[in-house]
């Protein structure tokens, strides 16, 4: 349990620094530190699949963000925040925090599976019959690609659509033609 608290405090401090610092590069590095802390958290919670995905995506995103930050000249943020906007965001975050406290009260105790509280939950079926029904030794793969393959299809569709949008908006040739026509 202690390592979770240490990691949590580390991530909260990094998040506060990322919001409060004036230097854009150190803010980006703090965002990366939050991601690596989350990856370590998944590893300690014995979810290596998610830990691998998290750390790989984090590395790629950090490279992109640092590259984008370095190539710009203006990396210092100036000016103060508005008082009204700060008050509204604090109130909204507090309401979400209260709702989260109510949700966490209904969860089972930390470390116990959810089917210990509600018998007949779907996760129990996955763990008991996953190997004999799908033949995959990695139960996570059997869940995301067999039992819940619709989720994966939706995720793939979202990724495909966003890639189409990004390549259409950022494409090179039309910009060139526009410049030439000017």
């Amino acid at each position, binding site marked *: 349990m202690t390592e979770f608290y240490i990691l949590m405090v580390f991530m909260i401090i990094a998040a506060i620094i990322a919001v409060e610092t004036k230097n854009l590069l150190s803010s980006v590095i703090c965002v990366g530190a939050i991601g690596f802390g989350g990856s370590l958290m998944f590893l300690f919670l014995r979810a*290596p*699949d998610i*830990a*691998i*995905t998290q750390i*790989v*995506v984090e*590395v*790629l995103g950090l*490279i*992109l963000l640092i*590259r*984008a930050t370095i*190539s710009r000249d203006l990396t210092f943020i100036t000016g103060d925040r508005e008082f009204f906007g700060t008050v509204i965001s604090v109130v909204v975050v507090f309401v979400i925090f209260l709702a989260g406290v109510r949700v966490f009260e209904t969860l089972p105790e930390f470390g116990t599976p959810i089917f210990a509280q509600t018998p007949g939950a779907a996760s129990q079926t996955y763990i008991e019959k996953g*190997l004999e*029904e*799908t*033949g*995959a*030794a*990695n139960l*996570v*793969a*059997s869940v*995301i*690609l*067999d039992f819940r*393959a*619709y989720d*994966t*299809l939706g995720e*793939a*569709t979202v*990724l*495909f659509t966003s*890639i189409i949008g*990004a*390549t259409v908006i*950022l*494409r*090179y040739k039309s*910009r060139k033609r526009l*410049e030439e026509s000017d």
Partner: protein
Amino acid sequence: MEGMTVIVKTIASWVKILIFVFGIYIILFGHLTPGGGFAGGVILASSYVLLMLAFGRKFVEQNLPLSLASKLDCIGAFLFALIAVLGLVYGGVFFVNFLYQKYLPGQPLELISAGTIPLSNIAIGLKVGASLFLVIFALSVCCKDLRYKDAKAESASNSSANKKE
């Protein structure tokens, strides 16, 4: 010279193969060990990001043209949907694991097992790798383009100022 120094280029040309093979391993063994299509695809894309940072944009565009990357992206998405439709045709239910249940049971904990799950992993890995490569390439092109535009506007304003003088 485009790209970084000779040291970075040499190390990158050694390491890129290791990263690529590790990504293929993560994809192929996704049904046995932690990992899977998504993580492996991101690792494949990151090997190309390493090449892009070390050797520059043109080198990567010669190795993996944009048209080929978008074709790979579409092929991955199409394969994943095809596996689902084949489940509907041969197994009667959309996304059913027809290979494992009818044709190729296989032993658990072996490489060829679990029916359609490794095939889906390969399709998703292909799709994610190609699409992330496309995104990063589009972003780098966009940044270059904007900087080029800024420099052009600056030089234009300079020349107009010179004319006024």
